[in-house]
């Protein structure tokens, strides 16, 4: 992975890579690993928490947006996509994992690109949530209809829940990015 964002460049310098093995710096491996784990854990835990009253609602999207806003589109796509997919497997919805990977991965990717424009302004983040969220909802819809072949009925039945998840997750994701940047600047989160 080439160093693209400012944040990763700083880390590359700091970490004095051993002579050109070409691996990603250890801090990136570790950080992507734990953020993936946390995305999965949040999806899993909040799913259980909201399950009795709110059906299929979970807070996983807030982690996808957080990763995207704080650490860029790569983190959004990888940690958000893989983390959400792992949660699917562990929740007993493994058949959804590949589609979740595509849907949440694209959500994180798009939110990460748009949300960090203009130095990550508030407007950019809101637009990032809207664009990334749309990607997620549409990807799920298309995957369910054309790849999983569940028919438009079942696919559309899932969509409103996804939209609510984007709105709630996006709000919380923006708050989290702001929070972590403020209280733990050493993490290099933007």
């Amino acid at each position, binding site marked *: 992975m080439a160093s693209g964002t400012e944040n990763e460049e700083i880390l590359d310098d700091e970490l004095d890579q051993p002579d050109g093995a070409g691996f990603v710096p250890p801090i990136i491996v570790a950080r992507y690993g734990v953020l993936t784990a946390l995305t999965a854990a949040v999806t899993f835990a909040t799913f259980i928490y909201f399950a009795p009253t709110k059906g299929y609602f979970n*807070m996983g999207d807030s982690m996808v947006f957080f990763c995207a806003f704080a650490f860029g589109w790569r983190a959004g796509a990888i940690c958000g996509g893989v983390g959400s997919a792992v949660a699917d497997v562990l929740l007993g*919805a493994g058949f959804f994992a590949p589609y979740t990977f595509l849907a949440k991965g694209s959500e994180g990717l798009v939110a990460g690109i748009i949300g960090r424009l203009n130095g990550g302004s508030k407007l950019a983040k809101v637009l990032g949530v809207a664009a990334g969220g749309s990607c997620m909802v549409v990807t799920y819809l298309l995957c369910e209809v054309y790849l999983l072949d569940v028919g438009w009925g079942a696919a559309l039945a899932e969509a409103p829940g996804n939209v609510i998840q984007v709105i709630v997750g996006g709000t919380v994701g923006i708050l989290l990015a702001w929070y972590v940047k403020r209280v733990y600047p050493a993490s290099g989160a933007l």
Partner: protein
Amino acid sequence: MTRFEDLYTEADTFLHRLDPRVKMASVLMLSLLAIIMSALTYLLVLLTFIFVLLLLARSSYRKTTFAMKFVLRFMALIAILWPLFDPSGTPVLIRLGPVVITEPGIWRGLASAARVGCLATVWYILIFTTSQRDLVRGLVKLGLRFDFGLALAIALRYFPTFGTVMDSIIDAQRSRGMEFEKGNIFVRARKYVAVLGPAIVSALKTADMLALALQSRAYGARRNRTYLRELNMRPSDYVALVAALAMFIVPAIAKYAFSIPI
């Protein structure tokens, strides 16, 4: 998070002994098979076959129901809603204004539900019988970059840890009078900032420590690292691989080359 359970159980069945790469290939083949099949009967046969494999993997009753837990609701949804959106074919059973329900529509709905059932459960043949370590090792052998594999291994390792962390944070905030059960979904979600904030900070601190540990163990010192335990394909692995490939290829040829409806 207390409901989380480790899906992998140690045992000594032929599925456990099989090379993880072969298991991944088999799951892929069976999934593709489910996708190309459209006859309800054959899909039910495949679903039964998958369950036989799960039984052979000695997965407990609890785990088998776990694998079916979410998909059952989804299958019901498909079976009910499909006919409403698929008015093609005859005989027409019900005509209510714009809604037309046909008999083939109902069968197609059931077939689609069975297909989703297959796709949902076939995964767990792999997950129930393969340890995290073998899973990651198999992926790395299949060409996943070592550093990405390592990140995945870290993710799987820390998932239960962070689950416990979140539980503790929720307990701590409740102890200070925070009520997560109150308010509408937006109010409740905002309260989660008090949980996710500390969780993220402690996760990032963990990452900083892990990075130091990786460096001190000469991570990235050489590109072609060696392994203590290599994965080696045994003759039985090849047999299983060929069988899995045949299970997809033969029906595929029958369907697309000879137009046999399956």
